[in-house]
C-alpha cells in the first residue's frame, strides 16, 4: 500500500479558551482532491494550521507522505484565507509568484532570470500573465486567489493546503481554479481544500473530511456523503461535547469555571 499523503494521529488542539479540535485521526491516500467540510467555527482553519505546525497542537502526530513536516516542507504549499493577507503590501503579482521559489533558493541567492520565466509560466497556467506588474491589491477576489495558486505552482509542491479558496470568487476564476486543481491531481498531487459548497464537493471532489470539532467522517465522497453523516456534521447534537471541551480548556489553563 502506498504511503498516505497525510496521516494524522490523535491531533488535539486548543485555541484561546475552547477546545477546537478533539482527537483527530485520519489517513488520506495520495492523488486525491480532498474537501474539508464542516459548519462555521468547527475548526477547519485550525485543523489546517495545526496540521502544518502554524498552531501548536496539544498533542498528536502528523506525517506527510510518511515523513515529518520538517523533512517534507519543500513539498508543501499553503494558501491562507484571503482576509489574512496584507494586500496593501508594495508587491507586484510577479513578485508574489516569485516568492514560491524562495524556499528552494536558500539564504543568499536571488531569483534569476530563469526563475522569473518560470514564474511567468505559472501565471500563464492560471491565466494571469497580463497582470504580472500590477500591485496585488488591484485585483478581484478571484484573481487574487489565482495568483496564490500560481505561487503554489512555483513551489513545485506535491501537497497543497488551501483555506476557502472559493469564497467570494467569481465564476470564471472558480472554473480556472478548479481546472488547475484537477490538473494537479492528474499529476499525482494531493490537494486539501477547505470548502463550503457541498454541491460542488459532491460533483468534483474525491475525498472528504467532515469536521465538527472532532472527526465526523473521512473517506471517499460516495461513502461520506450520506444524509446521516452530513446531518451529524452540520446538525446541532454536539452541545454536550462542546460543553465538555470547553471545560477541558478552562481547567487546563487554570481559569475559574465561573
Amino acid at each position: 500500500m502506498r504511503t498516505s499523503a497525510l496521516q494524522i494521529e490523535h491531533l488535539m488542539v486548543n485555541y484561546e479558551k475552547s477546545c477546537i479540535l478533539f482527537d483527530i485521526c485520519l489517513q488520506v491516500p495520495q492523488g486525491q482532491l480532498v474537501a474539508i467540510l464542516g459548519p462555521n467555527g468547527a475548526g477547519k482553519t485550525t485543523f489546517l494550521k495545526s496540521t502544518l505546525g502554524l498552531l501548536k497542537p496539544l498533542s498528536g502526530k502528523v506525517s506527510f507522505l510518511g515523513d515529518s513536516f520538517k523533512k517534507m516542507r519543500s513539498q508543501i504549499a499553503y494558501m491562507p484565507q484571503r482576509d489574512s493577507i496584507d494586500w496593501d503590501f508594495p508587491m507586484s503579482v510577479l513578485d508574489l509568484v516569485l516568492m514560491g521559489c524562495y524556499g528552494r533558493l536558500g539564504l543568499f541567492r536571488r531569483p534569476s532570470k530563469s526563475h522569473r520565466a518560470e514564474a511567468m509560466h505559472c501565471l500563464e497556467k492560471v491565466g494571469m500573465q497580463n497582470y504580472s506588474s500590477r500591485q496585488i491589491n488591484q485585483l478581484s477576489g478571484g484573481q487574487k486567489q489565482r495568483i496564490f495558486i500560481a505561487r503554489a505552482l512555483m513551489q513545485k509542491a506535491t501537497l497543497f493546503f488551501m483555506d476557502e479558496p472559493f469564497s467570494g470568487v467569481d465564476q470564471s476564476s472558480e472554473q480556472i481554479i478548479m481546472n488547475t486543481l484537477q490538473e494537479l491531481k492528474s499529476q499525482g498531487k494531493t490537494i486539501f481544500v477547505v470548502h463550503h459548497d457541498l454541491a460542488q464537493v459532491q460533483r468534483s471532489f474525491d475525498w472528504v473530511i467532515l469536521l465538527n470539532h472532532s472527526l465526523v467522517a473521512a473517506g471517499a465522497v460516495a461513502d461520506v456523503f450520506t444524509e446521516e453523516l452530513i446531518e451529524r456534521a452540520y446538525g446541532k447534537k454536539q452541545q454536550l461535547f462542546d460543553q465538555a471541551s470547553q471545560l477541558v480548556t478552562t481547567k487546563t489553563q487554570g481559569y475559574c469555571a465561573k
Partner: protein
Amino acid sequence: MTFLEFFTDPLLRGPMLGAIFICMSTSVISVFVYVQKRTLVGETLSHATYPGVLLAALFTLLFGGTEPASFVVVPCAFVAAFFGLWLINRITRKSAATNDSALTFVLASFFAVGITLASVIQAVAPATFQKIRLFFYGQTASLGDLQIISYALFLLSIVLVVSLFFKEFKLLLFDRAFTRLTTPYFALFDSLILCLIVFSVVLAMKSVGVILVSGMLIGPAVAARQYTHSLVKMFILSALFGAFSAFFGNILSLYLSDRFLISLPTGPTIVIIAQSIALFSLFFAPKRGVFFRKVRVALFRFKSMQENLLKFLWAQKAAQPFSALSSRLGISALFLRIILWDLSRKAWVTFDQGYLLTQEGKKRGGHIVRLHRLWELYLVKDFHVSADKVHKSAEQIEHILTPELEKELTQFLHNPLSDPHNQPIPSRAEVSYAE
C-alpha cells in the same frame, strides 16, 4: 509630618490632591482606552500636544510675558492634539498607510515641529524654555490650589458624564458597529470619548509630564480588568488604583527627600507605581492572575492523578503495594506519597498489607469509572468513533465532567449498563456519595 498635613499644608496639598485628582481622571479614561483598544493613541496624543505647548509659549513671548500660563497652554495643546487626531484619521483613510505608521508619523513629526519651536525659544528666551521643559517630565511641585480645583472639577465632570450616559457608553464600547447603525448618538459619544482622552492628556501634562501620560492611560485599566469584567467596577477600581498611585508616588518622593535627601521626581514615580500595580494584578489577581492560574492547574493535575489512582484501585481485587501503584501511575515516589497521604486523610484509602479503598473510596473510584465509561459510550454512539480510540479522550474528560453534564449524558444515553468494551457501567446509585 502628620498624615493629614499632606492634604492640608498649602505647599503639599497641591501636588498631593492635584496629582490624585488628575490621576483618577486619567485612570477612569484609561478604561475607555483599554476597551476600545486605543492604547497607542494616548502615547501619540501626548507627543502631539508638544507643538501646541510651544506655540502657547511663543504667543506668550510675543505678548511680552515670560511664563506661559495654563489658560493659554491648555487650549493650544488641545488644538494640536485634535489636529493630530484629524490627520491620523485622514492618513489612514486616504492612503495605504496603516494605523500604526500614521500614529508614529504624527507622533514624531508633531514632536519635531515642537522641537523646532523649542529651539527657537531656547535661543531667544532661555528662561521660558526651561519652564517648558517641565512639561516633559511633569512637575508636581508646581501644582497649586488652582490645579486642585480645576482637576477636581474635571474629575467630577467625568464622573457625571460617565454615570449619566452609562448605558450609551456601555453600548458604544461593546458593540461599536451596532451602535453606529442603530443609534443617533454614535458620533456624539465617540467624539466625546476622544475629547475626554485629549483633555486628560493635556491636563495631566503638568503633573505627570507629556511622555508619561500614556502610562497612566494604560496601567490602571489593565490592573482593574484583572479583578472584574463589569464595566462599572472597572471604572471604580481604575480610579482607585490611579488615586493610590498618585498618593503613594507623592508620599514616597516626599519621604525620601525628607529623610534621605533623595529627590525622586514624582511624576515618573507615580507611573512606576501604577504599572507595577498593573503587572502585579496580571500575576496575582485572584481569578485571572497567572500565578493563581498555575496553582489551579497544579491542583487540577493533582486531583486528576488522585482520581486515576482511585480508578486503578477500584479495579483491583487485592490490596496493592506501593511499587505497583507507582509503576502503574508513572509518577515520582514523592508525588505518590503525597497523594496517598491526602487520600488517607480523606479516609478514602487505607493500608492493610497494601493499599485499598475504603467504602467511601470505592464509591468515588467507581464514580470516575462511571464517568469514563459513559463518555466512551457517548463518543461511540454519537460520534461514531471506533471503540479502540475513545479511551484516551475519556481519560481526560473523566476528570472534568460536572454532575450536570453527567446527568445529561445519562439521560441522553438512556441509562446505559455497559460501555463500548462491554464492561459494566457502575450505576448512579452504586457510586453516589454525599457531596
